[in-house]
């Protein structure tokens, strides 16, 4: 199972849970399975063409997936995934 940290704005979709466990072999998988368990969440993460939205950052074990293989980044049991909205940083 993959531990997924859910940001506050999406918690209404996970019944308030800040952390959920999902089985998945890749980020793409994870988004589909997350959406099956918590309908509506995919539309918040991805645009109509299925691309990740510009202001959604996803990290696997603290690493931004854009430095890995993006949506095709593979996942294994015990990995931790964080979904973090992009609103941070100075100057």
């Amino acid at each position: 199972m993959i531990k997924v940290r859910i940001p506050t704005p999406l918690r209404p979709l996970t019944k308030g849970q800040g952390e959920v466990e999902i089985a998945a072999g890749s980020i793409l998988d994870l988004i589909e399975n997350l959406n099956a368990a918590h309908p509506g969440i995919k539309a918040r993460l991805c645009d109509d063409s299925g691309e990740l939205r510009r202001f959604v950052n996803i990290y696997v074990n603290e690493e931004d997936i854009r430095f890995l293989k993006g949506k095709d980044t593979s996942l294994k049991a015990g990995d931790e995934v964080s979904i973090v909205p992009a609103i941070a940083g100075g100057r």
Partner: protein
Amino acid sequence: MFIPGDLEAAKVLGNLIYKPNVVEVEGNYDDVNRLCSEIAAEHGWAFVNINVRPYYAEGSKTLAFETVEQLGWRTPDQVVIPMASGSLLTKIWKGLHEMKAVGLINDVRTKINGAQAEGCSPISTAFKAGRDFFKPVKPKTIAKSLAIGNPADGYYALKATAESQGSMDMVTDDEVVESIKLLAQTEGIFAETAGGVTIGVLQKLVKNGTIKKGDVTVAYVTGNGLKTQEAVVDAVGRPFRIQPSLVAFEKTFKVGKNGGGDA
């Protein structure tokens, strides 16, 4: 207060003197930002540049207000602004338009130019490639205060710059150091590394004709050089060291009867 683990010593001390709890995070600004976003969500803490960001971001507009006021209630033709998250540039653009909205100025024709260091230039790189989105990078530059590889306001900074018909560019770390020295030696202002980035890019934009002689231009030098001494410590001279005697002085500077000159 959460800071990256490799911050310059003077910045850490400059914070510690006020006795906050300073937390050095083993990572860069991007790591700190992500961690703090999670802490904010999990523990209900308010972070000035995250979940209460409007106070931080909107505050930046004062740089636009002060510029217009100090120029005698007119806008500059060109501005050069350092970019980390891209927030400052975005808000200076917004601030200029707000001054027009309230009737303090008639028009905004300022060209907005963004400056980054080559070792961390996701926004400038996107601009030069004609993209409206950036690719995050792993920062590697002496301009640590600008070392945000995943700039949250990058998209807006690109948009503001394009709207204003401005430009963006980047400079090497060596150019940052040379620009810090140039600003000190010609204007008497000792800037930190971000100021070196701004001045370096200003020079580039003048050289390539983007900024023209006669353009009223404002370069935002946003930090004091005493905070980033590490960056220039090997690039400045050494003091002369002499005995407290007239003979030693005259010998060292080759003046007077002990200096071999004709006095």
